[in-house]
């Protein structure tokens, strides 16, 4: 990939990701905020591609965009009264929250100015999928199994919570 194409792609994708995030913050209608979240998630998947993590990009699109975002949109449609347009969007914490964010940004900027990171390693030609699979079933076998248990627990818990209570 030529250099300037990469640079332009990076700035475009990063801009889209941040715009999507700002949409989540500012859209009045929560459904629009959810669509904006999907845009941001897609842009993050593109960032993964730019970083040479194609498998992760695929997982991101499948799980986040395909499952989590759709679930969130469903929940919005199940709970929101569309007619109530003039509902207050924000809690009263807006000003203190903005101050917290500014402090966070200042600290990170200070750290980022001082830290010297090595340049990025070149992206290998072949994908990293088989090495990922090896690691997952050797070094990270225990977290892998624990996560499968966690998913099972979440599955059962969500069904129990969302089921209609039957009176008897």
């Amino acid at each position: 990939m030529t250099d300037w194409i990469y640079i332009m792609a990076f700035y475009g994708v990063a801009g889209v990701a941040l715009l999507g995030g700002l949409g989540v913050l500012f859209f009045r209608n929560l459904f629009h905020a959810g669509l904006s979240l999907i845009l941001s998630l897609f842009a993050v998947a593109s960032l993964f591609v730019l970083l040479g993590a194609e498998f992760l990009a695929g997982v991101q699109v499948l799980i986040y965009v395909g499952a989590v975002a759709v679930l969130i949109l469903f929940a919005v449609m199940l709970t929101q009264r569309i007619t109530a347009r003039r509902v207050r969007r924000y809690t009263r914490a807006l000003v203190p929250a903005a101050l917290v964010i500014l402090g966070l940004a200042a600290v990170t900027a200070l750290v980022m100015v001082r830290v010297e990171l090595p340049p990025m390693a070149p992206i290998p030609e072949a994908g990293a999928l088989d090495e990922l699979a090896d690691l997952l079933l050797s070094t990270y076998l225990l977290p892998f199994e624990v996560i499968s248990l966690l998913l099972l627990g979440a599955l059962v818990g969500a069904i129990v919570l969302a089921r209609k209570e039957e009176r008897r």
Partner: protein
Amino acid sequence: MTITPLHFVGVSVLLFGVGLLVVLTRRNAIGILMGIELMLNAVNVALVTFDRVYGPERLDGQLFSLFVITVAAAEAVVGLALILAIYRSRGTVAVDDLHELRG
């Protein structure tokens, strides 16, 4: 002029800040969940960036973000089920209307 790892980390920090702002200020519980997803995504970007910095032969960062994505999916599912249950019993999902436990 090239793209350094700091560029990616900068995007990650900005995205994290926006997500945190959403979490701290949105009134709707589902909006707060969206903010959490944004923050988790920002962390994933940072993880993959550092994975790339420390060479193609170490993939631990990518695996970590794989785990983060999985846990985020579980968290979203349970969180939304909780929100649905609250909506069914209370008729609202605005977090500052749920203040029974306030002293």
